C-alpha cells in the first residue's frame, strides 16, 4: 500500500514540477535535442557549445524582436527512441517555439512524425537526404547531404581523369547511407565502382579489405566512415602499399582525424564545410565574414577550433532567427512560412535559398575540397 502511494506521490511530484505557462512577451524558447553524451558526443558537444555561445551573443545584443532567447536543451545520448520522447517534452511541456536537433539521421527521423503532427518547425543538423527528400512541411536541414559529398568527390576525380574507384564503407548509419548515395551518383560522373568493401565502426584492422581493393586495381579509393576507424583505414592504406589517391568523406574533416592517422594522412583529400579550412579562406570568400565572426568567438571562449557539426547547429539557429525577424512574430506557422521564403541568406556553409520544394537550399559546391598538408587540413589546389 505504502509503495503504491509513493508511486502516486512521485507521479504527482513530476506533474507539479513541469507545468510552465508563458507570457507572450517572455523569452523565445529554442528547444534542442542534441547527442551531448553517448557515441555521437563528438557531434553534440561542439553543437551545444556553439548554441550556448550564440544565444548569449544574441541576448547581449538585445535578443530578437526585443525578446531574449532561451535554450531548453536535452540530450538524446544518440538514441532515436529518446529523441522521440524528448521532442514531445519540448513541444508539450516546455512550449518551445522551434526545435533544433538531432545529429543522427535516425534520431531526426524519429522526431519528424511528432513535429509534423504538432506543427512545430524542426531544423536538423543531420546529414541524411531522407530528412528533406521528400520534403516534409515542418522539417528543414542545414548541412549538405551525403549525396552532395559524393558528387563533389566524383567531380574532383573526374577532373583528374579518374574513372575506376573502390568504395570502402563503414557499417554505421552514416557509412551505409553515404554508400547508397555514392553508388547512385557514380555513373553520372563516368565513374565505375570496381570494388565495394565494408568495415565495422569498432574494427581495428582493415588490411584484408584493403588488400582486396589493391587487387582490384582502382585509380582511387573513396572511404566513407568515421573516426577512429577511418583513421585506421588511412594507416593500413599506406601499410598495404596503396599509392593511389585516397579520398575520405566529410565525416572525418577535423583535426582529430589528422592526429589519429599521423603521417599516413598526408595527401588525403576530402569534401568539407568551409568552417574546417577557415584559416585558408580569402577575405573575399562569401562565407568569410560569417565564419570570422563565429570562429573568432568560438576560439575566444573555448580555446579550440569549432568543428563542422558546430557550424551546422549555428546555421540552424541563424536560419530560425532570420525567419523570426522577417515574420515579425514567433507564431509557428508564420515562422515556418518565413523559413520557406528564406532567400539569399548567408550561413557558415553557403548562400541559402529555401522554397516549398527545397528545405535544404544548398548545392554540392557548398563542400570545399580539402587535403592534408603538413599535419593540417588545407584547401586543396
Amino acid at each position, binding site marked *: *500500500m*505504502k*509503495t*503504491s502511494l509513493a*508511486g*502516486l506521490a*512521485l*507521479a*504527482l511530484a*513530476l*506533474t507539479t514540477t*513541469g*507545468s510552465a505557462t508563458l507570457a507572450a512577451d517572455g523569452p523565445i524558447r529554442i528547444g534542442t535535442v542534441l547527442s*551531448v*553524451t553517448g557515441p555521437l558526443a563528438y557531434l553534440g558537444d561542439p553543437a551545444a557549445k556553439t548554441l550556448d555561445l550564440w544565444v548569449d551573443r544574441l541576448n547581449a545584443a538585445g535578443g530578437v524582436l526585443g525578446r531574449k532567447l532561451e535554450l531548453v*536543451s*536535452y*540530450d538524446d545520448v544518440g*538514441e*532515436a*527512441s*529518446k529523441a*522521440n*520522447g*524528448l521532442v*514531445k*517534452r519540448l*513541444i*508539450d*511541456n516546455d512550449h518551445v517555439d522551434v526545435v533544433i536537433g538531432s545529429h*543522427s*539521421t*535516425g*534520431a531526426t*527521423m*524519429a522526431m*519528424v*512524425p*511528432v513535429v509534423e503532427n504538432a506543427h512545430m518547425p524542426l531544423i536538423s543538423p543531420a546529414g*541524411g537526404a*531522407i530528412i528533406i527528400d521528400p520534403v516534409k512541411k515542418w522539417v528543414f536541414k542545414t548541412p549538405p547531404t551525403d549525396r552532395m559529398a559524393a558528387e563533389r568527390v566524383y567531380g574532383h576525380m573526374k577532373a583528374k581523369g579518374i574513372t575506376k574507384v573502390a568504395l570502402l564503407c563503414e*557499417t*554505421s*548509419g552514416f557509412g*551505409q*547511407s553515404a554508400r547508397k548515395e555514392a553508388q547512385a551518383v557514380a555513373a553520372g560522373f563516368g565513374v565505375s565502382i570496381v570494388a565495394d568493401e565494408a568495415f565495422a565502426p569498432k574494427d581495428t584492422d582493415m588490411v584484408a579489405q584493403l588488400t582486396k581493393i589493391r587487387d582490384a586495381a582502382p585509380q582511387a579509393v573513396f572511404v566513407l566512415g568515421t573516426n577512429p576507424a577511418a583513421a585506421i583505414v588511412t594507416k593500413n592504406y599506406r601499410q598495404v602499399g596503396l599509392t593511389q589517391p585516397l579520398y575520405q568523406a566529410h565525416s572525418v574533416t577535423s583535426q582529430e582525424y589528422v592526429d589519429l592517422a599521423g603521417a599516413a594522412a598526408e595527401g588525403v583529400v576530402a569534401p568539407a564545410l568551409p568552417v574546417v579550412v577557415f584559416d585558408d579562406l580569402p577575405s573575399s570568400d562569401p562565407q568569410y565574414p560569417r565564419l570570422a565572426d563565429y570562429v573568432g568567438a568560438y576560439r575566444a571562449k573555448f580555446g579550440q577550433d569549432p568543428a563542422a557539426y558546430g557550424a551546422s547547429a549555428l546555421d540552424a539557429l541563424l536560419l530560425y532567427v532570420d525567419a523570426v525577424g522577417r515574420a515579425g512574430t514567433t507564431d509557428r506557422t508564420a515562422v515556418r512560412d518565413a523559413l520557406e521564403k528564406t532567400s539569399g541568406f548567408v550561413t557558415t556553409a553557403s548562400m541559402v535559398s529555401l522554397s516549398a520544394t527545397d528545405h535544404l537550399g544548398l548545392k554540392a559546391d557548398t563542400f570545399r575540397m580539402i587535403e592534408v598538408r603538413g599535419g593540417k587540413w588545407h584547401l586543396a589546389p
Partner: protein
Amino acid sequence: MTSLSFPNLLEPRSPMRFVPLAILVAVLATLPFVLPNVWYFDVAIRIAANITVVIALNLLIGHCGQISLGHAGFFGLGAYGSAILTSLYAWPPMLALAATAIVVGLLAWLVAVAILRLQGHYLAMATLGLGIIVSIVLTNESAFTGGPDGMSVPDFAVFGLRIAGEKAWYWVFAGLVVAAVVFATNIVESPAGRALRALHGSEIAARVVGIDTASFKTRVFALSAVVAAVMGSLSAHYMGFITPGVAGFSKSVELVTMVVVGGLASVWGSVFGAALLTLLPDVLAHLEGWETLAFGMILVATMIFLPRGIVPSLVAFFTKKEG
C-alpha cells in the same frame, strides 16, 4: 487496534490480495485526468510498455532463475516484424502483430531448447549473443529495415478503428499493464508458479520432486519473448519510427536492471522497478550532463539500502516492524 498489515496485501491467499491491483487500476484510471499535457501521457506509455515487458522477464529471471541479456532483441524483432509487414507488405497491423509474435515465440522456443541447457553465466552469454545477432541483422539488412537510420511505421488500426495519439494509446498500454499484472500474479500463485519457485531455489531438488524443469524454463522463456515482441510491435506503431537502437544491448541491460531494482520474483517489484528506471532519466533531464551520475548514484543507493529490490526489501522491512 491492529492495522492492516502490509505483507497481507501481497500474500497469495490473503483476502486483501486484490487491494494492490485495485490501487493500480485506480491510479491508471485517474492519471489521464491529472496529467497536464501530452508529454506526460508519452512518459506514462513508455513506463507501461516497460512494466509489461519487465513483468514477463521477471517470471524468467526471478522465478526460473534464468538470466536473459537478449530480451531487447525480441522487443526489436517484434517492432521490426510489425514495421516491415505493415509498411512493405501492407499487412493489417493486428495480423502483422500476431504473426510476428508467433514467429518470435517459435524462435524463442527453438533457442530455449538449445540454450536453456546452459546454466548461470553460460546462459547469460548465449542470450547476450542472441540479442547482439538480432541487433546486427536489423542494422545490416537495410533493404528491409532501413539500416541504422531506421524506418517509419504506419498507424495501428484494428477492424478499421485507428489508434493514434498519446491519449488513445494510453488506454491500450494501461490495459496491457493490468492484464500482465493479473496474469503474472495468477501464474505465480498457481502450481506452475510453485514449480517455478522450486526451480529457482534448486533445479536439482525441483527435478527430484517431479517437476519437468526443462519444459518449464522453455515455456517461460518463450512466453517472456512473446510479451516483449508484442510490446515491441505496439511501441513501434505508437512511435511511428524505429531504429535498431530499440534492440540494442544497452536496452537489454536496462530491462534486467529494472527487474533487479524492482525485486526478483516480485510482480509488484517489476511495476516499480520499470516505473522508476523509466522515469528517472526524464526527472533528471535538466541536470545537464550530471544525469548519468545521478542515475548511477540512485541505482547504487537502491541496491545498498534495498538489496533485494524495492518491493521485497520494503515488504521485509515493514513485516519486521509490525511482527
